[in-house]
């Protein structure tokens, strides 16, 4: 196969010959590699020889390891350009047809995927002549594997063929729907939703609804659960005003909702909002509201979890009175559900009800639920509630929220599990921006400072980042009064691990404080810490100096890097910054450079480099998380 043609240099063809040899090699890995480079071979052979020699060769190579066949199926999908473009695209159908009949599902799936990809590039005539017969051959094969592949090949050619062929396609599909093996019916059901989308409403009503009805009555629940998607597809295609006249749809929907298999009910619950949007309002009010309530009370926790996820989406579609009278009570009962997963799912969704209910109803109905869920023994439930408080805040206002929910927040902030505390810290800046300075200082300030002395390192670290965000919210004035003194006080803690928090906090806060604060509060503290007994503190001071130098290089007389960058105003460094570096920082750094400890010297030299190097854009908070 590899002999040199006139137009090609034999030397160039040699590697290709090797590749082709590798296609037949005993080692699976080598064959696999050769398949992956099939395009190179094809490119070298040219379109004509690829069509005449390579494709027939591949046609015969279906007797290989599944791994190789998967690769082959995938490669062939993008092979049209190598066989001479779309006009010759149909030559690829034959090897892919063989691959689509293989026993291994992974190979078949890839082959079907590639077939559909090729189909989109073929002309109508090619589709009629080559693709459609292929679909029929696969669908009428004896063995179910081919039929399963066939099921996936109906939607892509449908719009490319004439009406007569379309009707043939539909009747062929109907046979698959009525197939005796559940595997085929399952595959038909999976692909039907897509197929339905290709047709006009009247055809759907006449031919597809009966097929759907057949599948809904299937005795296998694994088939029935797939019909939920078909139902949605049909309902979206058939105009809402015509749906009422097709009672079949509604009966099917009702029977799916009441299905004895929980997996089917789960499917319904999981797609509830989509279903409700696809059907007309009358059906929603008459059928879906009771169904919703029923699913909320389902015996299976999985179903309740799924339907809890649909609460705000569905409740937005029904009118307020129905919501309050018929649905609310059941939702309220979910608060004390026996499954923590149901409660957690409810926790993520329940806040979404606040905008729908409005202020008064939120206070009447949602607040009691919140308060109870905030006491839930499962921390995830509590966290979900807190993380979504913003929505509630917008509806009922901060005062009410604060009164009723604050104790719970405080309790959560002191939770036994440190990961819960960590999560709460993450919400603090948001809470702070909504609560306002006065309230924050009063109720939460103490908490935020307390975290600086937490026993867990990660909490202390998160606390410093929290302080930075708080400073961004409340401004530097507030920070220099409320935060800085407390941070500095930590520097006197007898345990070095806690003293270190001061260094971390300074590095983090550097970009949100003014020149004044740095000069008056921060530098004196660092000078003290630079003489600490413990080398770990001293090299952290050096690291902090490094950050400060970066900031001072850019900091103007007034304002902070953060506020100026946010405002977008150009600013230039004040000479005072350089003066501080030279007079206050460098002497300490010099001392640290002569330290006994190698790590201190290392970080001091990094800081010294920063001080002597050209101005940089530093000020990045250092990342200490493991």
């Amino acid at each position, binding site marked *: 196969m590899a002999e040199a043609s006139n137009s090609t240099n034999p030397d160039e063809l040699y590697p290709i010959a090797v590749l082709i040899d590798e296609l037949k090699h005993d080692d699976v890995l080598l064959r696999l590699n050769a398949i992956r480079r099939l395009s190179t071979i094809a490119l070298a052979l040219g379109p004509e020889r690829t069509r005449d020699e390579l494709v027939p060769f591949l046609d015969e190579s279906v007797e290989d390891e599944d791994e190789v066949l998967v690769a082959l199926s995938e490669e062939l999908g993008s092979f049209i350009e190598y066989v001479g473009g779309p006009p010759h695209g149909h030559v690829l159908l034959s090897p892919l047809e063989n691959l689509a009949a293989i026993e291994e599902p992974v190979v078949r799936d890839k082959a079907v995927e590639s077939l559909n990809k090729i189909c989109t590039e073929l002309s109508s005539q090619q589709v009629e002549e080559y693709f459609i017969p292929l679909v029929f051959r696969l669908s009428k094969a004896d063995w179910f594997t081919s039929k399963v592949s066939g099921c996936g090949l109906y939607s892509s050619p449908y719009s490319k063929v004439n009406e007569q062929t379309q009707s043939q396609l539909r009747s062929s599909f109907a046979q698959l729907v009525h197939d005796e093996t559940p595997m085929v019916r399952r595959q038909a059901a999976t692909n039907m939703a897509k197929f339905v989308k290709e047709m006009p409403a009247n055809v759907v009503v006449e031919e597809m609804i009966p097929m759907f009805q057949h599948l809904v009555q299937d005795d296998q629940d694994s088939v029935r659960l797939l019909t939920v998607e078909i139902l949605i597809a049909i309902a979206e295609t058939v105009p809402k005003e015509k749906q009422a006249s097709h009672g079949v749809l509604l009966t099917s929907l009702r029977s799916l909702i009441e299905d004895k298999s929980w997996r089917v009910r789960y499917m319904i619950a999981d797609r509830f909002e989509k279903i409700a949007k696809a059907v007309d309002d009358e059906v929603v009010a008459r059928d879906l509201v009771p169904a919703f309530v029923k699913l909320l009370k389902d015996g299976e926790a999985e179903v309740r979890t799924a339907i809890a996820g649909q609460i705000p989406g569905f409740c937005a579609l029904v009118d307020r009175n129905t919501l309050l009278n018929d649905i609310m009570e059941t939702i309220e009962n979910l608060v004390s559900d026996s499954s923590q997963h149901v409660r957690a799912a409810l926790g993520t969704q329940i806040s979404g009800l606040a905008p729908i209910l409005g202020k008064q109803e939120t206070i009447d109905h949602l607040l009691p639920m919140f308060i109870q869920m905030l006491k839930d023994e499962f921390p995830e439930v509590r966290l979900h509630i807190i993380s979504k408080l913003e929505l509630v805040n917008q509806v009922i206002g901060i005062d009410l929220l604060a009164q009723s929910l604050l104790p719970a927040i405080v309790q959560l902030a002191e939770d036994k599990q*440190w990961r819960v505390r960590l999560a709460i810290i993450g919400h603090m800046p948001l809470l702070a921006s909504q609560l306002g300075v006065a309230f924050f200082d009063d109720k939460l300030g103490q908490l935020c400072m307390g975290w600086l002395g937490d026993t867990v390192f990660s909490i202390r670290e998160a606390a410093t980042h929290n302080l930075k965000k708080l400073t961004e919210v409340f401004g530097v004035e507030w920070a220099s009064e409320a935060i800085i003194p407390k941070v500095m006080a930590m520097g006197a803690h007898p345990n070095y691990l806690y003293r270190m928090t001061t260094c971390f906090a300074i590095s983090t806060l550097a970009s949100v404080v003014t020149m004044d604060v740095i000069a008056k509060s921060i530098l004196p503290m660092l000078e003290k810490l630079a003489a600490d007994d413990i080398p770990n503190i001293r090299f952290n001071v050096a690291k902090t100096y490094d950050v400060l130098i970066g900031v001072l290089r850019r900091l103007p007389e007034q304002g902070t890097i953060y506020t100026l960058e946010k405002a977008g105003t150009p600013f230039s460094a004040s000479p005072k910054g350089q003066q501080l570096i030279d007079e206050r920082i460098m002497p300490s750094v010099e001392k640290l450079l002569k330290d006994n400890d190698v790590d201190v010297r290392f970080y001091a030299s990094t800081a010294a480099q920063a001080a002597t190097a050209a101005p940089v854009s530093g000020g990045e908070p250092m990342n200490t998380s493991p």
Partner: protein
Amino acid sequence: MSDLDRAIAQLRACRPIPEAEVRELCHKARELLIEEGNVVTVNAPVTICGDIHGQFHDLMELFRVGGDVPDTNYLFMGDFVDRGFYSLESFLLLLCLKVRYPDRMTLIRGNHESRQITTVYGFYDECLRKYGSANVWRYCCDVFDYLALGAIVLGASNTLPGTPAGEDVEIEVCNPDQQIMSRFLRRGRGRGAEGSPSGNGNGNGVTNGVSSTSPTPANTGPPGSGASGSSGGSVGNPAGAVLCVHGGLSPLIDNVDKIRLLDRKQEVPHEGAMCDLLWSDPDEIDGWGLSPRGAGFLFGADIVKVFNHRNDLSLIARAHQLVMEGFKEMFDNSIVTVWSAPNYCYRCGNVAALLELSEDDAGLGVLARSNGDVNRSTGGVVAGPRGVLMENDLEDQVLPGPARRYRVFTAAPQDSRGMPAKKPVADYFL
């Protein structure tokens, strides 16, 4: 960023580094470790950890609770590998940190740091699986031979910082839940005169002693080094030293200097002093007993007390045995087992612990450390004033233990382990 820093970042993400880098790392580590004595001298403050056993994500949890390297000083007492799924990543990360921050990190050898044991309990197979050859395992085993056998912690404080004034708290146990689970007051003698416990406002940590430029040469070597020649009356460190070793004591070792005389650069032998240090367990017996492990010995309270007394030790910290509460003190608080692998083997349901020894208020925590490497620190220079010798120090025959804070922590949650917590919903329907 240097190659080493990059390797550290990659290992922290739980991705193994290429074989060539492992080779270079192990080479550097050996150069470093060969300079260390059999018993490494470590200065407080230090955080002492027990077995890790390849539980990488729990090691990360340990750093999250205890603080990151190099900010916190760590001493790991062996058994980094085997049993867990990530022995390779865990050990290489610790080794990288050791090479990058030699003064902040101390690793000593456990009984699992051996060729014979790792071929049976998983590390060998893991290397083979992850690299396709046993080369990496070989490099690591060569490093194992150079790991120190023990460590002596000097200058640990007798008082716990941040405890209520006026109470002399000796032991504090914190769970990761921000609560102090229990506190134990120091029994008996009032030792309040030296190094007063101070509250937050005092600022002792920054004001004491360092400015003093008169390093007083010690009359005797550091306690526990045996250099003082006498015990009990040491002018050295009133706090007494802490000996850290993976397993325990050996009948062939009656003082710490005997450990220093061993030739450690070999595979762990089946018997003898080196084997015993890595394999023995304390037990409620008198004297010595045969160990059910088939290596090492069991030793009783009397052995520990005599050994501590003779060597001027206040505490022996060791690992080697699973304790459900993470740590366990025995024999009148003269020996403690620290265990740092939570939910051991991913199924035991135990919690893990760290032991924090804090710095001494008296400024004794600044003995510069050299470990024999001239380029790192100037060895032996004492930067702080010695504590004033109290009359009753000479009379005390049993040294008081250093203040110990145990931090208990639990296994890292599923979702931080980089695998899906549960299978996606779609799997129900397959």
